[in-house]
């Protein structure tokens, strides 16, 4: 793979990541959000694949496949299952920060991520590290979704966005953090999502709705 192609593919994958993250902020239909999230998973897998091709590492290819299965397949599936039980609450009707402001915030977060990532880029300038700000942006946008979205499901997506961003940063900085850790992280994420999904259904059982802002029983 030529240097230019590598960089273009890398940028494409990263662009996909960023775009999907922004789309999550933009859209209100939960089903659409899940679909966007699946696309992001694919983009992440693509990113890993590009890196794997570049490095020529079979191991990394395997990881790419794993990422694809987990993030574009299993997790969206779990989310969809959670949504299926959600009844009519299928829209993120009234986010705490409206869409326009959210998009503006995303822009600011992007700038922030860029500014913050400079030392990382400077440490080892390369095409991959140049893309680190994208990963950080996705993390921050994920956090932002977590903070501003009312539906349990959108929070779940927010958390996963963060995780996608972190994974992206991980792959962009180095070739991962060691296999044991990698596996552990993935397992943890999967389990966390499982737990959250179960909790979502339990919440629905007990509260009837999953507007998180109504969870105010525990307070001082």
């Amino acid at each position, binding site marked *: 793979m030529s240097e230019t192609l590598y960089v273009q593919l890398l940028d494409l994958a990263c662009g996909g990541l960023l775009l999907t993250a922004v789309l999550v902020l933009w859209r209100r239909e939960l089903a659409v959000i899940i679909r966007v999230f699946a696309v992001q998973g694919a983009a992440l897998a693509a990113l890993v694949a590009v890196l794997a091709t570049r490095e020529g590492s079979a191991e990394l290819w395997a990881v790419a496949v794993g990422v694809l299965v987990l993030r574009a397949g299993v997790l969206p599936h779990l989310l969809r299952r959670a949504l299926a039980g959600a009844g009519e609450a299928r829209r993120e009707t009234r986010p705490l920060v409206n869409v326009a402001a959210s998009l503006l915030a995303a822009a600011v977060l992007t700038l922030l991520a860029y500014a913050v990532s400079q030392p990382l880029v400077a440490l080892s300038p390369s095409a991959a590290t140049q893309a680190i700000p994208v990963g950080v942006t996705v993390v921050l946008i994920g956090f932002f979704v977590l903070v501003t979205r009312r539906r349990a499901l959108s929070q779940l997506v927010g958390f996963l966005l963060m995780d996608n961003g972190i994974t992206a940063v991980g792959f962009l900085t180095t070739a991962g*953090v060691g296999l044991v850790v990698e596996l552990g992280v993935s397992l943890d994420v999967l389990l966390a999502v499982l737990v959250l999904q179960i909790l979502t259904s339990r919440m629905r059982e007990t509260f009837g709705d999953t507007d998180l802002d109504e969870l105010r029983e525990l307070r001082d």
Partner: protein
Amino acid sequence: MMLLVPVVLPLLGALVYLLFGWRRATAWVSAVSAGLLLAVAVTLAAGVTRSGPRTAMAGLLRADALSAYMLLVIAAVAVLATAATPAFLRTEINAGRATARTGTRHSLLVQLFLAAMTLAVLAANLGVVWVAIEATTIVTAFLVGQRRTRAAVEAAWKYVVICSAGIALALLGTIVLNFASTHAPGAAGLDLAALAAHADGLDPGVTRIAVVLLILGFGTKAGLAPLHAWLPDAHSQAPAPVSALMSGVLLSVAFYAILRVKVIADGALGTGFARAALLVMALTSLALAAALLIGIRDYKRMLAYSSIEHLGLVAFGAALGSPAALAAALLHVLGHGLAKAVLFLGAGQVLQLTGTSRVDGVRGLASRHPALAGCFGLGVLALVGLPPFSLFASELGIARAAFTAGLAWQTGLALVLVLVIGAALVNHTSRMLLGAAHDHPVPAASPVPVVLLAGLMVCAALGIAAGPVPVLLNSATHTLVVTR
């Protein structure tokens, strides 16, 4: 192989519950496992102080004095919590709030929880530490939501979401640190010992980001501001033995990670950076606990906020960074663990006896259940930092180290906040305990709180004469102090 035992032992316990369920014969398995864990921890501590750190599992597990000490803390609190569990579960089952299945799941998850924590303190790799700590969140999520009431589910949700978000930051930090480490001479990866040893080669710009993210992230799990908010909810809703474990050790285990990070930060950035970060977090946590404790209305939440306070104090001690301060902070971890475990277990009994966790709902406890009330009261006095409990010794040590470090104003502020918190604790507790009990003429069967008494006595004994513990503390602080 010695190092694998502490991780495997609880897993075996979990296996027992998985296979046989919770019944009369297996009720005490968890306590036995915790007791064995304590024995192993003591042996390990003795070994480590005698012959230095040891590794196992191809360098994945590593035990130095600090790990051994933390293992000791985990085991000690676990013994208290698991010893109180059978009686707790039986009462719950008798009251119809739980079934044997709940018991099985409870015991199983608690054993897994213990395993995750022991793994966290024994792991040689920061990544594994992260995995283990995130695992504790997942394992305890269902323990927090065990009662399945609205409040319990809400608490579990908040717990998982906030902790996962926070710990995700730590993951990002870990990755960034890894990045810095791979580009540093010595290429240590994420091995804690190697990182600490070669910290001065890390790129400061990158390490700064990593350290901030790691401290914030693990700080979440340690109940430090700003991502502390899950703590009062989760601790107040979890069953008493779980609250005891969470408050007594989980927070400290997360803080253990911060301590490890701090060594690296000190090596890479000089002592000022982590100190400033921890000081701000510590003081914010203290202020927050103070502000919220004044008007608290739920006694389990009160204990939870007190945990925020004490972790704040530990963070304050850690921020100082001198050997004396670190030894005091570590001693504080143990003392707080014991006292808080006693209090949460006591609070659980109070809740079972009175049916309410509101401060207003409990009156004249000392008249009705003198032994329980006595333990609860003494526990609160221990938390306030009165001798002979070891929290006094450690707070004294922290204060002394702080003034020696020249942080007069910050320490003054911290102590004033501690005073306010102490006043609030005493105020609320005295309302619960003291006074005549005229509404309940016949006292219900009052449980004899042997476990609570034992915990208090250990805490007091530790405060009077800690025996060999200071030696262990001493060698633990050596691993934490950067001499550069």
